[in-house]
């Protein structure tokens, strides 16, 4: 009989190395697509700039701004679907059958998916920085006129929140797309119902979830909506909600959503633990 002590078991270090590599392979196609998109954008920028100058206009410089990363942050909701592709809960037996604790194994995979995704976010940032340098634009780092340093952390934190929320769906649901569609449609249906039925308390709740001081939008953009008087292009002065960067509310919102997302991922991963 083979005893517990005598039987060789894989080390976490080996599993981590393999997971990093395997998750990287699973994201290779998406990585290639992103690289292709950046190349295409670079070509389009170049053509537009050359045309602009050949039309007798002066040079154009593109400044680096954290908001450039917003589309990549939104992709964070979808990246976990690629990390767990072909492995919705009912088809995850291969993963569960590995000779290591399942919950930690699942969390490890989430972590390596996150690492690759963060590398991609950084890659896009570097690309945008190179475009700014090439066009003589402002890198916007520090200084009294530049973007405050904390605002460069916002896209990475936002991407992490999006990725972890997406991981909850990918880990826990057989039908992630139905969840995404359900949440968006449900939100707008509730908002529409609240407006039609004159339910201000429900509108307040939905508003707080979306862009309140602790809302998801605040956590993802680092801005809070402030009512400002804005002059429209046709000269009318209107009061509108304008996003204004605000460090303290962002920290609160980011910590809240990070906490919720981390707790959700842990709760779902530990559903299948050995007991």
């Amino acid at each position, binding site marked *: 009989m083979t005893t517990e002590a005598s*039987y060789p078991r894989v080390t976490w270090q080996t599993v981590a190395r393999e997971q990093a590599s395997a998750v990287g392979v699973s994201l290779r196609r998406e990585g290639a697509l992103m690289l292709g998109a950046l190349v295409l954008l670079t070509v389009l920028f170049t053509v537009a700039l050359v045309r602009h100058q050949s039309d007798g206009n002066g040079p154009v410089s593109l400044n680096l701004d954290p908001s450039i990363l917003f589309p990549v942050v939104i992709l964070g909701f979808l990246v976990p679907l690629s990390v767990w592709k072909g492995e919705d809960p009912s088809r995850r037996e291969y993963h569960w059958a590995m000779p290591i604790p399942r919950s930690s194994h699942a969390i490890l995979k989430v972590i390596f998916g996150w690492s690759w995704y963060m590398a991609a976010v950084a890659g896009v940032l570097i690309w945008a920085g190179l475009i700014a340098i090439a066009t003589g634009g402002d890198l916007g780092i520090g200084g009294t006129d530049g973007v405050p340093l904390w605002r460069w952390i916002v896209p990475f934190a936002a991407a992490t929140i999006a990725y972890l929320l997406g991981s909850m769906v990918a880990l826990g649901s057989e039908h992630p797309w139905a969840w995404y569609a359900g949440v968006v449609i449900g939100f707008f249906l509730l908002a529409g119902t609240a407006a039609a039925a004159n339910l201000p308390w429900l509108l307040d709740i939905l508003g707080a979830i979306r862009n309140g001081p602790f809302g998801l939008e605040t956590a993802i953009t680092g801005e809070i909506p402030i009512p400002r008087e804005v002059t429209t292009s046709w000269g009318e002065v209107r009061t509108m909600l304008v996003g204004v960067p605000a460090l303290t509310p962002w920290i609160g919102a980011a910590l809240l959503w990070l906490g919720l997302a981390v707790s959700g991922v842990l709760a779902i991963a530990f559903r299948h633990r050995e007991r």
Partner: protein
Amino acid sequence: MSSILPTRLGEDPLAITTRSLNKRYGKIAALIDVDLQVPEGAVYVLVGPNGAGKTTLLKILLDLVRADSGEAEVFGLSSRSDGPAVRARIGYVPEGAGWGYGWMRVGRVLEHHSTYYPTWDTEYAERLANAFDLGMDQKVGKLSKGEARRVHLVMALAHRPPVLLLDEPTDGLDPVMRDETLGLLADHLAETGATMLISTHLVHETERLADHIGVIRGGELQAQLNVDDLRRGLRRYRAEVPTGWTGSPTLNGSVLRRQNASNEIQWTIWGDEGDVLAQLKGSGATVREAAAVSLEDAALAMLSRKE
């Protein structure tokens, strides 16, 4: 159903044990009080029709399915609470093709699998891959059922586990590859002395390997015994009977299968051959033949027994 057939093995040390295992899927009982006993080093063939509970039983041993009640152990380790340690000792061939990552190539999935098993024998894996004629550059998700099964067999065998759980291991393989697979399993046994639990409904294929058999039907383990005991205890009797013969009432409970052919009747009966012959003769039947049955016929007789 109370069984006249043995459902408990002797005192041999056991590699796999389950105690009063129960599992329901909604209103359907998949397993009912199953006490599986697989001795160390045995090749135990678990026979049953589709939906009998074989796959569920194997998955409970890997903790891929959780039993509603009861215990499952491999080498004394609980499948539930010592899952990683249990799974480290098991090579598993699943019933379906969806095993491994469909988007990986065969070579990469074998490499991936190997990292989880420090006992992985690269040379042996290459030997198996050659024997199974695996194309390493094919995507796992694009493999046919037979090709996928061959990959699964390499994954299960190449880390030389002390326990193999094989769920319909030859399903989808062509006759030549089936023969090759059974030969490789025999070699594996000879080299490692592993314990093998094979779930199948194609008993004849495993006849040359099997030394224990378990019969499961409707979630109940109706028999489990050593194949030698089975061959001794279960015999086919062919006899001529007089017109209006009403049978031997004392034998009825032991008859597993009865077939009529002109004025002859053929029974498959569990019990001591001398006693059975005496009872048949005593009832007026003229016994023409008493013969051993093949494992497949034995399984068929046990499975077709009416309650």
